[in-house]
């Protein structure tokens, strides 16, 4: 059971540290920044999905009054960059590979002038044959997108554990089918943007709404061909990330190039159209063929996947995402024999990338439906199948993922109770049905080299207030508040006595940033370590002041005293001053760090992705209108095992927000594309769920404690998004007996399936 009951700050409904600024409109987002002499940058994008650039004439644009610079690849070092494969340029060199690619850019005294000048840049293109379908792109003779990638294959995975043939031969029931997902855009209400400055000494300062500061610094420096410390990245308030602001796009790099050329601060804020075309890299769409074998009693015996992942024109994080889709789910259930083949394929489309769930939502869309099909064939309640196969503490996946804490079983039990599963199943009403799915996610991921760590510094100010210096940053999810709670708990000071700095690569130590549900777990552990070390210093000095042994002291509510002698307490502020203001004095300051006990995957993809795994089970009750095909979610239940809940407001918010994105993914989101060109890249064509679309939701957190986490906590941010689409599809099948295999599940598709069934 949770060991968190005695915590004083951890587990409390603490309001946001930056909350006051956000509810009053005072929080400074990157678009709100204005520097003296600042110019505005706009980017000219390719209108063609695949074309050679024969010539660019910028002379007319340069003559426009108010234009201060026009840049093309000639103003760059023409070096490719990218998270895993260096395959994209800041500004196109030689050819363009998707509609929206950055070809040139303008800096001018105001955005309208810059926009006008864009139209005067003359680019001669020679159109090339293009390919938009990943399977076609893999064929011999398909147009080649990158010269060094034969058959347009960016990466392949081919892994078999156990003996898949024997396992299928040994199965009593085998199901197989193909499921297709869609590219989903993050649609953070704030688009990507940067304000870049260049000092003639050679240093760039970039205010960015990135969720991964140090990775941004690394990539921007690589693209500009400078040292990492020649780039200082300062995080502004971030208006939503969800993976889309992890610096796989060129926005900040173009701003930096313009700033260097003009020697003026330059602001480049994506329009909504920019954002759809070349901003946040949408979810990798995948076509997944799945085959699963079961024993008569419902045990999973074999699983085989073949994944074709549509990478788009450049790779970003798609290689890692495809890896997750291929292997991660094998940590959710007790698997023995599995085989996965995956191909990541270039096409002349918008590059794809990291989006909350990171490959998991696509894989679970397929696998959790296959399990539901198996349950149906076996005539066993899918909830029983989930329970019977669920991973537990100590489970090691076929690929080496080592599960420490795991309360998946408890999550399934809670879903059963909260959904009133048995009663509803027994009394099934026409056109109404129940569906469920389970999920697993990581708490940090060892894949950027052999490092899965974080660090932080805490200093105690002379007034007793603690300041956390941490580079993980805040993207809106509440990381800063969780960090403050962790520090307050460890230090023994009130939450009001803890502050956290803005993340800034020049002032905070290296952190990987917000991805892989890692910040609370990895960053939180680092903060806790720093706090413990700072507390050691406090105890040391206080022991001199109180003439007692450090071991006999307690720090509580900002006071230090000898156990049982609270009346003779000194304050943390007294101690900080006493330590500093004396001959040879020193501030109370300490750095802490943490590196998860994970193992980098070897060339066969065997390893241990993360230090801890988070689990969840979700269920939906839906009603299908057989006249219109409309699906109505009557009730939704989400349970999560994220270890100790550091802040219930934040944790609930993560689950609720995930559900909205999951339902959007399942039912409504997507852009109409023609020849790699989005027809209407805006919010009227790309519909997002609104308040009236949200169903009744009940959620709960398992009583759980992760021994390696800060106060028992592990990750949560992505978990809720992963299984939702499959949950809805399984419920529709239970309701009306048709299975939708491509996303999104539109009323038209449901109607069509119903009609076909009647035939």
């Amino acid at each position, binding site marked *: 059971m949770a060991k968190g009951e005695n915590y004083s700050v951890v587990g409390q409904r603490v309001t946001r540290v930056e909350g006051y600024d956000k509810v009053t409109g005072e929080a400074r987002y990157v678009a709100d920044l204005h520097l003296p002499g600042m110019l505005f940058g706009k980017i000219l994008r390719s209108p063609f999905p695949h074309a050679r650039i024969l010539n660019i004439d910028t002379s007319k644009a340069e003559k426009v009054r108010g234009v201060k610079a026009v840049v093309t690849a000639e103003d760059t070092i023409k070096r490719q960059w990218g998270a895993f494969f260096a395959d994209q340029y800041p500004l196109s060199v030689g050819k363009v590979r998707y509609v929206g690619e950055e070809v040139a850019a303008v800096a001018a005294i105001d955005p309208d002038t810059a926009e006008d000048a864009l139209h005067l840049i003359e680019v001669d293109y020679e159109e090339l044959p293009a390919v938009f379908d990943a399977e076609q792109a893999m064929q011999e003779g398909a147009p080649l997108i990158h010269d060094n990638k034969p058959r347009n294959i960016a990466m392949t995975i081919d892994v078999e554990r156990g003996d898949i043939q024997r396992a299928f031969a040994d199965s009593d029931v085998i199901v197989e089918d193909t499921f297709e997902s869609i590219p989903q855009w993050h649609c953070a209400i704030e688009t990507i943007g940067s304000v870049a400055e260049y000092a003639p000494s050679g240093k760039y300062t970039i205010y960015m709404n990135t969720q991964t500061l140090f990775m941004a610094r690394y990539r921007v420096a690589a693209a500009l061909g400078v040292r990492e410390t020649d780039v200082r990245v300062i995080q502004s308030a971030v*208006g939503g990330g969800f993976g889309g602001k992890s610096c796989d796009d060129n926005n900040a790099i173009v701003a930096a190039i313009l700033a260097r050329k003009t020697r003026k601060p330059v602001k480049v804020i994506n329009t909504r159209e920019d954002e759809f075309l070349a901003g946040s890299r949408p979810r990798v769409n995948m076509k997944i063929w799945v085959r699963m074998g079961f024993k008569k009693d419902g045990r999973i015996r074999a699983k085989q996947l073949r994944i074709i992942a549509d990478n788009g024109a450049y790779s970003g994080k798609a290689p890692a995402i495809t890896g997750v889709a291929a292997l991660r789910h094998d940590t959710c259930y007790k698997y023995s024999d599995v085989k996965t083949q995956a191909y990541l394929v270039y096409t002349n489309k918008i590059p794809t990338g990291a989006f909350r769930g990171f490959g998991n939502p696509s894989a679970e869309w397929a696998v959790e439906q296959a399990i539901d099909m198996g349950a149906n064939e076996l005539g066993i309640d899918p909830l029983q199948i989930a329970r019977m196969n669920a991973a537990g503490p100590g489970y090691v996946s076929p690929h080496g993922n080592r599960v420490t804490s795991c309360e998946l079983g408890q999550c399934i039990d*809670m879903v059963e109770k909260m959904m009133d599963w048995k009663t509803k199943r027994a009394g099934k009403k026409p056109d109404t049905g129940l569906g469920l799915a389970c999920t697993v996610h990581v708490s940090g991921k060892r894949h950027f080299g052999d490092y899965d760590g974080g660090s932080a510094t805490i200093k105690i100010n002379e007034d007793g207030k603690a300041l956390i210096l941490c580079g993980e940053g805040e993207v809106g999810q509440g990381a800063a508040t969780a960090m403050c709670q962790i520090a307050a708990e460890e230090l023994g000071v009130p939450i009001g006595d803890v502050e956290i700095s803005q993340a800034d690569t020049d002032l905070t130590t290296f952190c990987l940033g917000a991805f892989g549900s890692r910040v609370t777990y990895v960053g939180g552990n680092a903060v806790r370590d720093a706090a413990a070390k700072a507390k050691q210093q406090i105890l040391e000095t206080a022991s001199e002041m109180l003439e007692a042994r450090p071991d006999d002291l307690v720090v509580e509510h900002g006071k230090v005293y000898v156990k049982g002698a609270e009346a003779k307490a000194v304050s943390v502020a007294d101690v900080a001053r006493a330590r500093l203001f004396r001959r040879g004095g020193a501030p109370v300051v300490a750095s802490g760090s943490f590196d998860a006990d994970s193992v980098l995957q070897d060339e066969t993809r065997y390893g241990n992705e993360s230090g801890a795994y988070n689990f969840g089970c979700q269920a939906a009750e839906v009603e299908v209108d057989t006249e219109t095909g409309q699906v109505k979610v009557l009730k939704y239940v989400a349970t999560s095992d994220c270890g100790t809940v550091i802040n219930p407001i934040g944790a609930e918010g993560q689950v609720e927000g995930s559900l909205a994105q999951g339902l959007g993914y399942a039912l409504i989101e997507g852009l109409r594309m023609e020849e790699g060109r989005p027809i209407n890249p805006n919010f009227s064509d790309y519909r997002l769920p609104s308040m009236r679309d949200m169903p009744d939701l009940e959620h709960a957190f398992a009583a759980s404690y992760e021994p390696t986490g800060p106060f028992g906590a592990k990750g949560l941010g992505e978990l809720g998004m992963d299984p939702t689409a499959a949950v809805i599809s399984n419920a529709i099948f239970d309701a009306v007996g048709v299975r939708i295999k491509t996303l999104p599940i539109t009323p038209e598709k449901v109607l069509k399936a119903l009609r076909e069934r009647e035939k």
Partner: protein
Amino acid sequence: MKRHQALNVNGEEYDIEIEPNRLLLHALRDDIGLTGTKEGCSIGVCGACSVIVGGRLVSSCLTLAVACQGKEITTIEGLAKDGKLHPLQQAFLEYGGFQCGICTPGQIIAAKALLDSNPHPTEEEIKEWMSGNLCRCTGYYKIFESIMAVVQNKVRAEDLTARERREARIQSLGVYKSSS
């Protein structure tokens, strides 16, 4: 041609020089410097740019600044008085009605417009009205709860100033227990 324009925002007169096609959104943000009003979609869909003009809720990304001559404009910056939060702001803070905060000024302004004209809306009325304000972070549940808290008078009476609020961030709601 730029011309002189007076705008009354949050009870203050501002004199600015703008083109006749200047959008209210940009006049507020760039000419006056009130950046609390946000731009999300630029086409009147997301509600991030919501402001109240002459008592009506408008999308400032679709409204010309010149059309607001002589009307009272209320933006998010006009809600807190002397450091004391408006009950809606307080409710959003306490009930977690925001995460990244980019949609929040628009959400709070839209909710204010609703409650100004209808102080006791039904749940359905809230959901319908607020569906013009998109949020990609919260899933809307806590926005709804925040507004309901104001409707039901549940927001704590003692208006805390910014400083007091910072010092007393823990609500008296107790330690979280899982529902199992």
